[in-house]
């Protein structure tokens, strides 16, 4: 936008500087000055043209330029160029048009400029913000019909402007006179037939029946520009969220009935509604002035002001492109509205889905864009659509796992909360087949989207519980049922991840995604205030603990730390409430956690790795031939920490040729820990701070569950 402003300033400056050139021109001779002048003017005109065709001009800029073009300051050629590039960025203000018309009255510009101005006005008619003032000039325009050159264009303008009250007997007479003078001109006939339609009694002459009435197409100069403006205007620009319209809207190919785009254009339903009333004639319909039309809805305050008299769109699908109406739909919990939207979306998805039909892949881009629009709307509303879920049921079994992958997985993550065991055979079993047979990248994206699904469910549940009594939630009627469903989802992902780890031979990359999922899981109790703690399966825990990657181990420490926080918080609540609610966690969860904790502390801290926690028969350990196995997994010798230990020692004494990592003991041990923490291992820091007593005898600090049960 800043570019546009500077351009218009330039053009103003250009004029001034050219005047200045004329002032100094006396010295160097008239020829050179005019050349100079032309050059500067040319440069500035070029800038204006470039900006106009690229971004369009703001309404104030159009105002300035119209003034220049019609005031007759420059010659015809310049005026024509200016008029030709007057493309609005969004709208044209009515006042500019009125001012421009006033320039026409003083007759400063040539006939051809006038013609071009009228053509411009007709072409841009739809972009003028209001038309009341312009309509007041009806008489002036009508008088311009006298001018033979202007007549066709003025006729077209009048055709667009005419309201019932503009049709007057003297005007009819004038038109008939003109027709008698100029013969049967198509433009005059068009205007006459419109007059006849509004006031059949006034015109008794019969107009030819089957003759097609043409206006000369005055838009063609600006055709491409108009398309661009329309596209710009359709995206509700003042809103923070840009639900913009894809290129689908300018598709040249008329593929099907809904010729332009998949998503219908926003139209208020008032037309049909009013016409449905008996007694109401079509002309009254066209003259209607009443409730707030949707087409004018541009900002949120407007929505709030007119929310009582807003007409719903005639095709509910059109709300998808309009964030304001999405707001509206979201708060109006009207069953027919939702049902209309549901049917439209289900059918459209089914029709557009490219792998339903053979050879439909040329529309792939379009389908992807459509899915993107749906996903944007879902994100905006923070709510999944039922139609999308139903669509997934039908289409997921047929999906190849490649086509529109990211969109499809996002749709999965927006499945509305429901009973997991019911959804599993319809969705997750099919997804699992693809999951196990696809690449590691696919596995990671599936895990990512399941993480988002979990998050969406948790948010929804935490809202639902705190907003209203649980009875209103779909399908599951109790909190226990809902928690059960969530925990089933988590266990399912645990199973997927364990198997995937085996298939991908403990890939670190995959493990990152799995741990990301558990980072959500471990914090359910505190973050979402929901009574649920589910631990990870051993397959994941031990893979992470024995990983060669420090960041994995760090993440594991962080997750253990958060589990601990959640479990202690839960425990505290139980003690406070005293009453045994149905959501007390079983001692098994605590036991499991303590078991993991013991293994972890045993490995990393106390150097007793295979006693408690992971138990390995000493005989087997002997067979491995590793003598010093006991401390081989502590924070110094653990394969993922060893490099840290070495660089720590080298930092201490850089000249040392050999380093002995076992020398890290006592004071050095705690310096080493500080060194590790300074290297960004925050998870480790939190874990050690919370779970390990800094005393002479380090020991694991488990959560005591025995006193309760």
């Amino acid at each position: 936008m800043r570019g546009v402003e500077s351009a218009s300033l330039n053009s103003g400056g250009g004029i001034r500087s050219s005047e200045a050139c004329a002032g100094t021109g006396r010295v160097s001779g008239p020829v050179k000055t005019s050349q100079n002048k032309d050059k500067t003017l040319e440069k500035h005109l070029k800038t204006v043209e470039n900006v106009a065709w690229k971004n369009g001009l703001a309404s104030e800029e159009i105002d300035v330029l119209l003034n220049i073009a019609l005031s007759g300051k420059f010659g015809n050629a310049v005026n024509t160029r200016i008029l030709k590039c007057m493309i609005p960025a969004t709208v044209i203000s009515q006042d500019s048009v009125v001012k421009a018309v006033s320039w026409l009255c003083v007759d400063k510009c040539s006939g051809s400029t006038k013609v071009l101005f009228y053509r411009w006005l007709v072409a841009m008619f739809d972009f003028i913000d209001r038309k009341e003032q312009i309509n007041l000039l009806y008489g002036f325009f009508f008088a311009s019909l006298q001018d033979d050159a202007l007549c066709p264009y003025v006729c077209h303008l009048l055709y667009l402007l005419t309201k019932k009250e503009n049709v007057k007997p003297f005007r009819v007479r004038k038109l008939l006179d003109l027709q008698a003078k100029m013969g049967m001109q198509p433009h005059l006939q068009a205007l006459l037939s419109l007059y006849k339609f509004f006031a059949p009694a006034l015109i008794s002459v019969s107009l030819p029946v089957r003759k097609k009435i043409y206006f000369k197409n005055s838009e063609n100069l600006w055709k491409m520009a108009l398309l661009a403006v329309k596209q710009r205007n359709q995206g509700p620009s003042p809103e923070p969220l840009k639900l913009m319209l894809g290129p689908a809207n300018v598709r040249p190919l008329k593929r099907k009935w809904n010729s332009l785009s998949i998503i219908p254009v926003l139209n208020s339903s008032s037309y049909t509604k009013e016409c449905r009333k008996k007694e109401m004639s079509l002309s009254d319909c066209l003259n209607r002035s009443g409730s707030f039309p949707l087409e004018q809805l541009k900002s949120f305050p407007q929505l709030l002001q007119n929310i009582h008299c807003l007409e719903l769109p005639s095709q509910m699908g059109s709300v998808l492109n309009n964030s304001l109406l999405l707001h509206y739909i979201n708060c109006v919990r009207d069953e027919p509205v939702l049902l209309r939207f549901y049917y439209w979306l289900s059918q459209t998805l089914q029709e557009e889905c490219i792998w339903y039909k053979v050879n439909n892949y040329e529309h792939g881009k379009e389908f992807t864009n459509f899915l993107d629009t749906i996903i944007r709307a879902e994100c905006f509303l923070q709510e999944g659509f039922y139609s999308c879920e139903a669509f997934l049921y039908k289409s997921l079994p047929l999906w190849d796992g490649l086509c529109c992958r990211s969109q499809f997985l996002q749709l999965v993550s927006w499945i509305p909360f429901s009973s997991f065991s019911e959804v599993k055979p319809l969705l997750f079993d099919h997804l699992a087949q693809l999951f196990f047979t696809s690449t590691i990248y696919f596995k990671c994206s599936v895990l990512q989207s399941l993480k988002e699904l979990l998050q969406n469910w948790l948010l929804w549940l935490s809202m639902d519980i705190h907003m209203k009594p649980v009875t209103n939630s779909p399908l599951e009627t109790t909190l226990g049922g809902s928690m059960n469903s969530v925990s089933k989802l988590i266990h399912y992902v645990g199973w997927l991840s364990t198997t995937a780890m085996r298939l991908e031979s403990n890939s670190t990359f995959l493990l990152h995604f799995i741990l990301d999922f558990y980072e959500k899981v471990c914090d359910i109790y505190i973050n979402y205030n929901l009574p649920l703690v589910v631990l990870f399966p051993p397959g994941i825990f031990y893979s992470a603990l024995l990983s060669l990657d420090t960041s994995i181990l760090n993440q594991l420490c962080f997750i253990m730390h958060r589990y601990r926080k959640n479990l202690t918080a839960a425990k505290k609540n139980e003690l406070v409430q005293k009453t045994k609610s149905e959501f007390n966690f079983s001692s098994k969860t605590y036991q499991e956690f303590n078991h993991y904790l013991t293994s972890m502390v045993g490995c990393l801290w106390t150097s007793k790795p295979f006693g408690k926690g992971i138990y390995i028969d000493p005989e087997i350990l002997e067979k491995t031939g590793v003598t010093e196995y006991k401390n081989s997994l502590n924070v110094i010798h653990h394969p993922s920490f060893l490099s840290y230990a070495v660089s720590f020692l080298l930092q201490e004494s850089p000249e040392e040729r050999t380093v002995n990592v076992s020398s890290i003991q006592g004071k050095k041990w705690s310096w080493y820990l500080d060194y590790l923490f300074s290297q960004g291992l925050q998870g480790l820091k939190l874990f050690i701070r919370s779970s390990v007593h800094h005393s002479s005898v380090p020991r694991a600090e488990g959560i005591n569950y025995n006193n309760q049960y």
Partner: protein
Amino acid sequence: MKPPPPKFKRFSCLSLLTSWDYRQTMDSYDVPESTPSASSRPEDYFVGATPLQKRLESIRKQTSFIPTPPRRKVPQCSQLQEDVDPQKVAFLLHKQWTLYSLTPLYKFSYSNLKEYSRLLNAFIVAEKQKGLAVEVGEDFNIKVIFSTLLGMKGTQRDPEAFLVQIQSKSQLPSENREGKVLWTGWFCCIFGDSLLETVSEDFTCLPLFLANGAESNTAIIGTWFQKTFDCYFSPLTINAFNLSWMAAMWTACKVDHYVATTEFLWSVPCSPQSLDISYAIHPEDAKALWDSIHKTPGEVTQEEVDLFMDCLYSHFHRHFKIHLSATRLVRVSTSVASAHTDGKIKILCHKYLIGVLAYLTELAVFQIE
């Protein structure tokens, strides 16, 4: 590919009628007892759930079980009520219709048909002259007529079917008769109970739409309906599975005098040009075959349909050594009606009109659910 059933008697092709006796061979098939009917739906909708959730429930059920119930009624003799205009019914027969499924119409009212015809008329004219100035006044040369097809329904609950016609106005005033019909389309719902249950009274459920006339007209009129009643048309295709059901059910119908041969068309996908196999049978032979298979009177089961088709396949294989089961069934025509996989249908028999439409409604409802 299934091998021909064992113990298949050889017979001469010329003496089809007498030798077409499958009664004994069928026993070797050992038809399993059909599973308990799934058509009676479990009534365990969650109490207090919104219609949308109910719908989702039913979709879950549909998707998790076999898509179609394994039993259907043989189309009965005409159940058309007395008040149907016989002229109108005759008008619907012997025409090729293109099928569409249609989601419920929002705020459609039967009392406004006149108004609708006026609006649609204006819309069509406007569409045809797009880019031109609107030609106003009474100067159209076409006429749109909405009319109800009274009595065209399966149960009392089904909404009334209605017909839309576009006629060209006769140019000469001396010709007083009605103009030429350019396009016809009709909306109906025969036994559409499953759909009616889930929709509130603001909606009118007419899931089956049949059109005859230029595709461009269908597009314009469909667009108007979509804009006005916020509904959605999608072409209704008939897959080979459903075509074989049609073949069996229509063969099972009792027809007094056969007007057409029973004919099947299979398509073999091979390059550069696909190969079509047409297979015509005398309708009485087809009926004889069906009777030999058919067990429960008045009903058709999935097993019977499969068996019927298998018999046709094996007969064909015997003579031409081609396994038809490996090809795709694309058209079925019988004396009752004929259907093409592209979603084209022609109904020939007045008696079974409702029966044919009931099955098509079922397919349409399945598509929009």
